[in-house]
């Protein structure tokens, strides 16, 4: 069977080393190999080559435009993830640079976005997986959760209540909390019981970052619809903007949740 590979997109920026380190960490977890690529859109592979050489990793070169080349590089059946750096302008409003932005909204596979100031070498012992409770998010993250547990990572599922999504009722908290967590785990991690469920209240983006810090998570994994517009994917944008650990983005579909059938029946049956 062909060995799967993790593609590390190295540019000539300071984040290149963290990208390669992250790719190596993920490849180890997946029992995959790392393939480093550099796109020569803006000159020769100076830093990228040096980083690859330092890590004794072969560097494949291709020609730009960069985003298109990276999308193409991640296209193979044997590519399980793409790792790239954020490269947002420090004072800019966008969480990622335009190239990274184009890549993460295009590639239909998991993409790991690595912050510039990641602690090196990157070690991933635990992963924080925020879940908003929708079927589409859970479906998107199901394999990620399985993979993470197979890789012996500590998996923390995080659900953040916003003011409008707070539970209606909390009868006896000491009974309610375990019952709710058990069911949340069964709904959103049906095949992997050995995960932790974390619940917090607040603004999701802020809470995700705070909990990642609190739990010393090595990575944050987020499902998203690959829309980087100003009013969309606010959690993803917040986390990408401020995370100090790699962020795994997993494409989700926009499947809507169907109502509980008993409800519909109850509403229709009148007299």
């Amino acid at each position, binding site marked *: 069977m062909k060995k799967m590979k993790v593609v590390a997109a190295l540019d000539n920026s300071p984040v290149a080393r963290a990208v390669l380190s992250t790719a190596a960490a993920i490849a180890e977890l997946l029992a995959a190999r790392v393939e480093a690529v550099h796109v020569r859109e803006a000159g020769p592979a100076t830093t990228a080559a040096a980083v690859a050489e330092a890590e004794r990793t072969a560097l494949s070169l291709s020609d730009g435009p960069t985003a298109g080349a990276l999308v193409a590089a991640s296209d193979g059946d044997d590519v399980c993830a793409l790792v790239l750096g954020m490269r947002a302008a420090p004072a800019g409003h966008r969480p990622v640079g335009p190239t990274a932005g184009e890549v993460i909204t295009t590639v239909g596979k998991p993409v790991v976005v690595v912050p510039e100031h990641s602690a090196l070498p990157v070690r991933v012992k635990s992963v924080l997986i925020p879940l908003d409770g929708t079927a589409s998010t859970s479906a998107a993250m199901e394999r990620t959760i399985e993979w993470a547990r197979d890789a012996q990572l500590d998996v923390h599922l995080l659900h953040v209540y916003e003011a409008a999504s707070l539970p209606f009722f*909390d009868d006896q908290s000491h009974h309610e*909390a375990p019952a709710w967590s058990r069911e949340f785990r069964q709904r959103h991690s049906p095949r992997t019981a050995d995960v932790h469920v974390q619940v917090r209240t607040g603004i999701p983006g802020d809470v995700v970052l705070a909990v990642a810090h609190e739990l010393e998570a090595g990575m944050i994994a987020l499902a998203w619809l690959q829309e980087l517009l100003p009013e969309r994917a606010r959690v993803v944008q917040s986390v990408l903007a401020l995370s100090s650990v790699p962020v795994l983005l997993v494409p989700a579909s926009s499947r809507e949740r169907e109502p509980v059938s008993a409800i519909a029946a*109850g509403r229709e049956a009148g*007299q």
Partner: protein
Amino acid sequence: MAVRIDRRENQQEMLSTADIALPKAVRRRFEAVIFDWDGTAVPDRQSDATDLRQLVEALCQAGMELILVSGTHVGNIDPQLRARPPGPGHLHLCLNRGSEVFQVDEGGVRLACRRTASPEEDAALTRAAQLTVERLGRQGLPAAIVSQRLNRRKIDLIPEPAWADPPKARLAELVAAVEERLHTHGIPSLAEVVAIASEAGKEAGLRDPRVSSDAKHVEIGLTDKSDSARWALNELWKRGIGAGQVLIAGDEMGPLGGVPGSDSRLLVPDSARATAVSVGVEPGGVPPSVILVPGGPRAFLALLEDQLRRRLEHELPLVDRSPSWLLPVSGFDPQLERVHESLLTLADGKIGTSGAPLVRHPAASPRVLAAGVYAGQGPETELLGCPIWNQLSLPLQEGDRLERQLDLHTGILWQDLENQGRRLTAVGFSSLARPGSAVLRVEGLPPDVIPERLLPPTEDAGAIEVGEIDGQSWVRAVDGDHGVVAAAGDRRYQIGASSRYDRLAAYSADPSGLPAPQSAAEALDEIDRAGFERLLTEQRGAWADRWEAAGVHIAGERDLNLPIRFALFHLMASVGSTGEAAVGARGLTGPAYRGHVFWDSDVFVLPFLAATHPAAARAMLEYRIRRLPAAIARARAEGRKGARFPWESATTGEEVSPTEARDRAGRLLAVRTGLLEEHVVADVAWAAATYADWTGDEAFVRGPGGALLVETARYWASRILIGSDGRGHIPGVIGPDEYHDAVDDNAFTNVMARWNLKRAAAAVAAGTPGASPAEAQQWLQLAATISDGFDTSTHLYEQFSGFFTLEPLIIRDVAPRRPVAADLLLGRERVQRAQVLKQADVLMLHHMVPEEVVPGSLTPNLQFYEPRTAHGSSLSPGIHAALFARAGMLDDALQALHLTARIDLDDLTGTTAGGLHLGSMGSLWQALAFGFAGLRPSADLLCVDPRLPEQWEALTINVRFHGARVRIEIRPDQLLLQADSPLRVGVSAAPAVTVGPAGLVLRRDNGGWEEKL
């Protein structure tokens, strides 16, 4: 009951009807047949009915209900039929054209009911017949009154020897002859004769003359076959059979000479979902809703033979598809599966079984729980997982189609599954008539699939023991020295291409000992001897009987009736009627809350049962009574007297609340409810008083119920401190509003303690032993001192000492929506510092003990406290619906009622997967009964004080009061009261009236109610 294959092919001897081809619409199992006699079941009244008799008796023995309808009298029917069916199915004769009903069984024929004409009605009937004959005579048509039967008069339109007794086979000729005779005398049709007779009846003073014609005669009566049909359908409903399961057979469904056929009167509005057939000649055709099965009585016999064959061949019964009684779950959604399983729970008060699919799936959570049988100790005590009776070893796979429907009227779960190209259908139920017994019948189980284990253990079960007795397998779930044992057996039947499979299981549960496998094996033998059909008949009857006593219906309301029935179904199913009933917060519907018993049980669930099925309420109280010694021991250990019941209770009656636990964020927090939520002591006393008030059970009050009242009062007497102000105070408690703990003088706790002292003193004064009159006097003196926080200037009760000084935070304005868990929204510390309530606290007094609060104080306290209430407890909306209704704020009441009705159906808590919220279900009933209907029991009077929203056409509630079954129907301007034995009813502020079986109608008049004359 060992496994065996029963190949029954063509074993049933067919009578001489093999040439009758039955149409597809009737080639299915029916549960009851309503049939006409003459022309339908027999060719004439002289013919031999031996074949029919044998069929009738065999069908009743196989569980079918048969109702014979005829215009003639019993003296004509019984000698010809001579059936003496043994049951479990019943035979009824609805005779004399709707005026009499007889029940027939092995003991003979007994009159069940008879409509008797008054002398005035009798005279009017005679006058109507005379007028009809006169008017026909004026046209030159000789006609004669030929008989004066019960409640009717019969006029012969063709009194000629040739047509003296025409057989049904000559019906077309008869119609032609009569019409020719009518035309000769200038009467255009038979319909004209009927019109003349109807007019004559009205002229003679009959309010609703029933005129019918069989072509030869025209009859004027007080009743007709439509009365028989209505009685029959109502009787079947009381036996748990809906119209959709009924076959109606006649031979004159179509018109005769322009007049509707006499059997068409069997097609009443309530029979719309029934299947109607005609076996008659039907010269004028049949109505579109009627299926023609030509062949006369032979065709009818063929129909009955087919029904008998289906039963003997173990065909599955179908559920009645009445949408207002059926809870359907379509498809299989792994995410919501456990929610669905809770909603579809089957229970009999003793065991509860989740509505998991018949086949296996990782997302399913098949589970059986036994009432009051726990595992573990202390706060970790939880309901013991029991062996599961309703699972097959087949897997549910991708692409399989699954439909489940719970029939709330009979407690039967229907499953229909397309599994890998094969179709499996099944019915299962937990026997309400024989608690602890479970029944499963499956159609379509492939012959090569051998159910491996009849009683697989629950996934997280503890110690399991297995064995066999006389070929029956048993499984015992054990926790230390107690447990649950179940025995099961199965049978397979191969009927031609159909494979049918029955499984029976019997459970024996013992909270305090290890039940012997023999006990389950014997119970299994017993239900095996009874057989599927008898168990099914009993199940339907038991549930229908419960509904008769507990039904609630809102006319003119689309969205509430099914949710109300859903709630009442689970309330009834979760509580046993014998011994003790430990009713946890989720009953038998799920493992959440570990099965611990809270005040939910005493205050929210019990009133419904006290008012509808007192035996279950008594069993709930028995649970407390048996734990009275533990409550007394706790009080002593804490330096008090009397009894202190635990906030959370399980096996022993000792406190099983934890002292610390992790919240949703994983933080370790102190839990002080077990230490401080003392109002449960008075709540238990209130439950005992509620039961006594509804039932009038004086022996209970003088016995164990009195002990509850006395020991709880004694507790408060030792708990209340007399302060320097000379007032009684209770420091350091948690009230129902659990957002504020360790508060002093919580109004709810103090007033409930006061009520407890007074109620116990009254019981002692009335003869309850256990306390001296002097002690009772001290209780009254103490009660008079208790501080209740009432401010005479504002008419507000202060929820606890210092509440009014807290931050005035109006959660209605602050929260994005209500209900909301405000402690999660604002943080635990913030809500402690603010005037934010989790649920009704002061207002709970207005709900539970309105006589203990200052008159007129409901509205100001409701206006003050409700906007400050987050309704963060699922117990809150239902109580507020009741309070809003009492205050006349009906729009708010309706909004809260609708919310309460959907808590589990919409999984508003996110924890319905762990079981249903019985407390909120109980509050739903209380909102309707106490809030909208304004029902209140007292020592010798049932009070009714209705508040009907303008959107509703009527609210009907059935209750039991002091042994009488009472029906209360509230309409905007009318109140109908009926009781099966005389009782006194107080309606609003009007003087009490006596209500009996004849019923009483009151009309709204100037804001009050007056008897309608």
